[in-house]
């Protein structure tokens, strides 16, 4: 039913009709009419962030932890440009986000008006699609289309740029059911010959490996269930990318741990030596493959992806299957069961034996100390002390992120929110806020670094305003640890600008925002500090002082192959110790 209303009313109506409960935003001149409508209703809850970048990351955290679309509302000009990093982040990690931006009135567009920028021009390469709505009668259709595009196929961010006069103008509203997209129709169901070929390959594999990714999470909980069923049925080893953690339970005996640059020895070696690789919703990213010409040289590769452009982008695959992971796995399971293949049990036994040999290397092992906290130990204790809780973890970007991925184990999907593709420092705190809003009763922890957390520290204020009890555990080594690690490994130990000279007192900073601050620098006190953080009712910053010069291993360095990993124990204390002068050492 078409109904007359203003553009601003349409925005709110469309959000309501799309079932949106929460939006993240920041007001400004060009979105005032929408904010006025927001004020006069109570179905859509608005969360006021402290910077627009925070709004997009919060929407990402909300989306990633629920499977719903995250919604952002920002003003023109700087509002839109501040959102760009978050939009790019969502594009790289395939997170569904609808970002509504205000724009100067249509007659001023192109005029260099106050707070004007070419929003659709700027966001064109960092969105799945975007629109500038110049006619109020197009607005409702575009808004519904925006939700459809954001969440269907390979999810991603979209921008709808709405000039102020369009918000004021009156036109016809149409509901979501009237929307049919004429060109965008992603393929969900796979071609059956490809499914049969893939099952055939897997059934005859002697050294198989499942390589799963964020696509399993994006496909929904059913995809994770089907993946588990298929893995159980085959008995094959499973590894996952950073984005896919939780789709397959880390407590399962078939789990090899994460693969890639900082993945486990067994996962990377299994990838390198396998004869059939089953890639499920991952995209052969450079952090996964390492040196391309030495990537899993002897294997036949099966690749499930909903986005045809991911197929053969980096690595040639033998059996591409275009479709949604859940649909494809469902079909593969059916074919597998009907076929009831005779597996080469002896070969699989030998393969597992080989894998167990790699596991015995204990690639994640680290040397613990009694006088200072090892960052790995801090994450491990956090995991062990929160096992019985309903936990969601977000991270910033850097060493702490990798340690979180290695030492915090996930048994369920949608529990792990991290910036994988873009690697955005400052992602974790706003993402935790988004996740906490979606799961008010759960324990949401941002595992952070001392450098990253400062990139969106202003969002502490948001958490206080909405009484969100998020916890931030800063693995504080007083360095941009990953930058320093690379400088140590690749740039002759010249630690150019990677030392954080003037860090704030995080406990006082927490208190200034109305948070609780916790400090700990002794392994003996670590458990108490973690429990204090977890048990405190409101938001907490835990300044966890860790070994300053600990590095993240194992690592596949410098365009090397999977079987050329650098292990932690090969890096002597001497070398790491020589990385810093007297003054720096006194800070440990």
């Amino acid at each position, binding site marked *: 039913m078409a109904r007359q209303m203003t553009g601003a009313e349409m925005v709110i109506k469309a959000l309501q009709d799309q079932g949106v409960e929460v939006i993240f935003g920041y007001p400004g001149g060009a979105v005032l009419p929408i904010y006025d409508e927001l004020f006069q209703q109570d179905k859509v809850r608005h969360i006021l962030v402290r910077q627009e970048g925070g709004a997009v990351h919060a929407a990402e955290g909300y989306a990633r932890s629920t499977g719903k679309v995250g919604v952002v509302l920002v003003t023109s000009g700087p509002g839109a440009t501040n959102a760009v990093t978050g939009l790019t982040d969502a594009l790289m990690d395939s997170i569904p986000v609808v970002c509504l931006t205000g724009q100067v009135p249509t007659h001023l567009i192109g005029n260099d008006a106050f707070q004007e920028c070419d929003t*659709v*021009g700027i966001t*064109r*390469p960092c969105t*799945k*699609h975007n629109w*500038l709505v110049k006619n109020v009668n197009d607005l409702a259709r575009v808004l519904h289309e925006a939700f459809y*595009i954001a969440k269907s196929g390979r999810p991603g961010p979209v921008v709808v740029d709405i000039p102020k006069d369009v918000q004021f103008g009156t036109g016809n509203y149409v509901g979501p059911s009237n929307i049919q997209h*004429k*060109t*965008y129709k992603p393929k969900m169901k796979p071609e059956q010959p490809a499914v049969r070929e893939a099952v055939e390959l897997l059934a005859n594999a002697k050294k198989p490996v499942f390589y799963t990714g964020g696509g399993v999470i994006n496909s929904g909980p059913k995809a994770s269930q089907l993946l588990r069923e298929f893995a159980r049925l085959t008995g094959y080893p499973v590894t996952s990318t950073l984005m896919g953690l939780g789709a397959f339970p880390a407590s399962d005996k078939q789990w090899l741990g994460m693969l890639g640059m900082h993945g486990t020895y067994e996962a990377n070696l299994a990838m390198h030596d396998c004869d059939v690789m089953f890639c499920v919703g991952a995209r052969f990213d*450079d952090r996964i*493959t*390492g*040196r*391309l*010409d030495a990537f899993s040289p002897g294997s036949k590769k099966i690749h499930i992806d909903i*986005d*045809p*452009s991911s*197929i*053969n*982008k980096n690595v*040639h695959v033998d059996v591409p299957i275009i479709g949604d992971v859940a649909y494809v796995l469902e079909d593969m399971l059916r074919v597998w069961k009907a076929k009831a293949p005779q597996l080469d049990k002896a070969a699989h036994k030998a393969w597992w034996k080989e894998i167990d040999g790699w596991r015995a290397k204990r690639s994640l092992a680290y040397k613990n100390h009694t006088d200072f906290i090892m960052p790995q130990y801090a994450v491990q204790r956090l995991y062990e002390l929160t096992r019985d809780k309903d936990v969601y973890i977000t991270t910033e970007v850097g060493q702490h992120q990798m340690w979180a991925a290695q030492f915090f184990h996930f048994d369920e999907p949608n529990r792990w929110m991290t910036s994988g593709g873009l690697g955005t420092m400052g992602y974790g705190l706003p993402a935790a806020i988004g996740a906490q809003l979606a799961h008010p009763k759960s324990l949401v922890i941002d595992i952070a670094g001392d450098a990253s957390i400062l990139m969106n520290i202003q969002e502490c204020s948001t958490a206080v305003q909405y009484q969100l009890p998020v916890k931030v555990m800063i693995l504080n080594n007083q360095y941009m640890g990953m930058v320093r690690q*690379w400088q*140590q*490994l*690749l*740039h*002759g*130990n010249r630690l150019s600008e990677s030392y954080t000279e003037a860090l704030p007192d995080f406990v006082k900073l927490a208190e200034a925002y109305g948070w609780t601050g916790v400090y700990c620098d002794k392994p003996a006190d670590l458990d108490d500090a973690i429990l204090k953080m977890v048990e405190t009712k409101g938001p907490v910053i835990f300044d966890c002082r860790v070994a300053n010069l600990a590095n993240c291993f194992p690592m596949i*360095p*410098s*365009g090397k192959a999977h079987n050329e990993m*650098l292990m932690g124990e*090969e*890096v*002597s204390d001497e*070398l790491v110790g020589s990385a810093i002068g007297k003054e720096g050492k006194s800070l440990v």
Partner: protein
Amino acid sequence: MVQTQKQSHYPSITTHENVVKRTLSITVDNEPGVLARVIGLFSGRGYNIDSLTVTETEHAKHVSRITIVTQGTPMVIAQIKNQLDRLVPVHRVHDLTEEGNPLERELALVKVVGKGEKRIEALRMAEIFRANVIDASIEHFVFEVIGKSSKVEQFISIMTELGLVEVSRTGIAAIGRGATTG
């Protein structure tokens, strides 16, 4: 011991061999910014554009046809097609070269200035190439030449010797052979 490594962390650039040239026909919704999306894709992902033509071909439906001549390895060409197909306003992407030796034509306007022998020679060559004179004075001609790119190239190269001062080319318009549509 960890060695200091001078090389970049990133995998070395794969050398491209076996580059092929393809003519793609892309049908799109003629909405604002659609050309920017297509061109932005090429520049953003480092693909080549050798020739580009675009205009609305079905006015009632607001559908435009973009013809792009590009080159790359077969893997890159496949990527280009998939990436184009992924754009929301794109209806279809056709690889006309793959579908069979397409008809390709280009139009060029060629301005030649000169007097005496060269002027006469220019006019004679224009006749051989079936180029039309569409503007003239006692010291110049503007020729209109239509044909395959190779013919246009050849014509321009000859005219360079005979007082060529300016060229404007349309880029390639292409269509598949036979009764089927692209």
